[in-house]
């Protein structure tokens, strides 16, 4: 049992940190600009495919730097020529724009790279077991993902809370005209923030691609769960997203590890009742419902604490 707990904790933290890497970009964009970016997971997918392509051409390490930058440039383009024009029509228009963009990116990606998974592999330098607990190996690559996530978290937090750049960015959100009067180009600030947020998603894509599956519907797999993370953590709160990512990672891994069902708690149903939908519900294990648990959590959080764990705003 101790073995299962230790290993599930490790797996949960690893998955949670990947979720954080993804949600950090989303939450930065939201907290700074108030735009809920539906296309965020698509930027993540773009990152994975750029990473794959560049790895083929110039190797993994240059790709790790260049691919997120490229995604960042795409993101800035979207802000400059898309969102900025729709901004005056309010948040619904912005939301719809990113919503449509998500579909467009998915189609474009499947047109270029096809619909089946591409062969994006872990770089040879990181393809070895880092350490062994209870005779289970931990791949060095997963540890690398963990380290990158932690570094990004710290760097973001410091930049936003402790530097002048962060100050201007935060001020631009609440008092755009004041910041403008002080001589800062508010439009450019927003564009850069959106670019950085997209680049973070791209980075998550580059490093998650080899570990998970790089294919044209990967955005659709992770997209919904990102919203759970940022709503759960509190819209726009970076530490909230961090905690929520870890919690959801742990909940999902531990749910898979558990075998409990109603039948195991209350005993099997009377056989005379025969097979019915009730027997199905009775025998379903926690492991089987693991994938829906985060969404259940989303619903509960919205009902009982709409601002999320560490959120400050009521929307």
């Amino acid at each position, binding site marked *: 049992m101790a073995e*299962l707990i230790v290993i599930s904790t490790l797996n949960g933290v690893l998955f949670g940190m990947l979720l954080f890497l993804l949600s950090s970009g989303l939450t930065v964009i939201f907290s700074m600009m108030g735009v809920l970016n539906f296309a965020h997971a698509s930027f993540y997918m773009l990152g994975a495919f750029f990473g794959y392509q560049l790895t083929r051409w110039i190797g993994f390490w240059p790709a790790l730097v260049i691919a997120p930058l490229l995604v960042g440039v795409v993101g800035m383009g979207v802000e400059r020529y898309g969102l900025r024009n729709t901004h005056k029509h309010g948040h619904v228009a912005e939301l719809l724009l990113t919503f449509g963009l998500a579909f467009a990116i998915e189609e474009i990606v499947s047109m270029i790279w096809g619909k089946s998974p591409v062969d994006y592999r872990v770089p040879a330098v990181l393809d070895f077991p880092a350490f062994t607990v209870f005779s289970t190996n931990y791949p060095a690559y997963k540890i690398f993902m963990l380290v990158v996530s932690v570094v990004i978290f710290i760097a973001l937090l410091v930049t936003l809370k402790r530097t002048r750049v962060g100050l201007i960015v935060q001020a631009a959100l609440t008092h755009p005209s004041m910041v403008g009067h002080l001589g800062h180009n508010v439009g450019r600030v927003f564009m850069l923030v959106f670019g950085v947020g997209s680049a973070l998603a791209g980075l998550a894509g580059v490093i998650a691609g080899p570990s998970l599956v790089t294919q044209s519907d990967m955005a659709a797999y992770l997209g919904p769960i990102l919203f759970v993370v940022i709503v759960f953590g509190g819209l726009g709160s970076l530490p909230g997203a961090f905690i929520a990512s870890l919690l959801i990672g742990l909940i999902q891994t531990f749910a898979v590890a558990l075998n409990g069902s109603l039948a195991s708690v209350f005993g099997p149903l009377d056989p005379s009742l025969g097979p019915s939908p009730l027997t199905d519900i009775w025998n379903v294990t926690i492991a089987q419902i693991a994938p829906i648990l985060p969404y259940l959590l989303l619903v509960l959080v919205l009902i009982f604490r709409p601002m999320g764990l560490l959120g400050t705003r009521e929307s």
Partner: protein
Amino acid sequence: MRRLIVAATAALTVLGGAASAQESIKIGYIDPLSGGGASVGEGGLKTFQYLADELNAKGGILGHKVEIVPLDNKTNPQESLVQAQKAVDAGVHYITQGNGSSVGAALEDFVTKHNSRNPGKEVLYFNYAAVDPSMTNEKCSYWHFRWDANSDIKMEALTNYMKGQPSIKKVYLINMDYSFGQSVRAAARKMLGEKRSDIQVVGDELHPMLKVTDFSPYIAKIKAAGADTVVTGNWGQDFALLLKAAADAGLKVNWYTYYAGGAGGPTAIKQTGLENQVFQISEGVPNSGNKAAMDFEKDFRAKTGISVWYPRAVNEMRMFKAAAEKANSIDPVKVAAALEGMKFDVFDGGEGFMRKDDHQFFQPIYISSFGSLADKAKEPFDEENTGWGWHIVSKIDTAQTMLPTTCNMKRP
């Protein structure tokens, strides 16, 4: 001038008529070409296109060219019905599908209903890989023909082999959560219990179908349960990723599988380093020793870049031609009648037959293990450039694969 136009129009009409007399036979290929099942779905499509080319090179079927119409169903039963209707509207009378018994059952129901409502416009469903036993038992249909051994037949053969392996003590079952996965787990529990009551089933897992991207939590559970053997019906990405996670975690067990040979599977097995510890049950093996099959394999690999995952698809298409020629017609009703009870020499040698009672094809099946190839002359084919390939460890003759059916066939 006007006369010229009239003449030209008349000529075109005549030409058009001539062309439609030699109308091609369209086969609607309804399988995943996107989503989690896409890797195997695209392999299947390449296989059928290759087989159609093979038939067309020899004059097609009764002079008609064979054309494969790819339709993406995203491994979704609902989407499959939309695609099937689309195919029928486009004049397709034959549909083929394999990935996912959930889809298979929906299509079987679709053709049954469609054919009873539209006499004279019948559609046949050729099933090359959906192996839920119910499709040829309680849910059987006259319009459905299955070329793959059903799940119970495979489990019967697999457990007969496992019976003779004394090292198996603790078995873990992990399967995809839908009709097929559920039938694999039920059959495995029942048959292992009957044949080796000393074997303990230490885990019985169902996971979401084609949705899991990281199997590490499941591998941790298998390890914690102390299993020495895993039995799984997983296919496509659910097999490749399961083995990839096992390789990453260093899980050392024996694997008894249905579909280890599909896309990404061999690469993942090589990563685990489990030489000759991963077994697969199938109706054909690349290194079968059958000359015709091995020549086919060589040419197929050169043209498509993948291995022959589906010898059953070869049987399906060749037998379709044989049945049409026997009936001397490409009318689905006549072809269906000709297929019933038909005997056929299968791809890897030996005789199979399409049982009339339930439209299940019976054929020799093989259990093979995956490892390095000692004799390159006898076993030339490796998989996915791993240097490892399949070799046969056991052959089950057609007669030993026969299981009774509960099908109560309603004939038109």
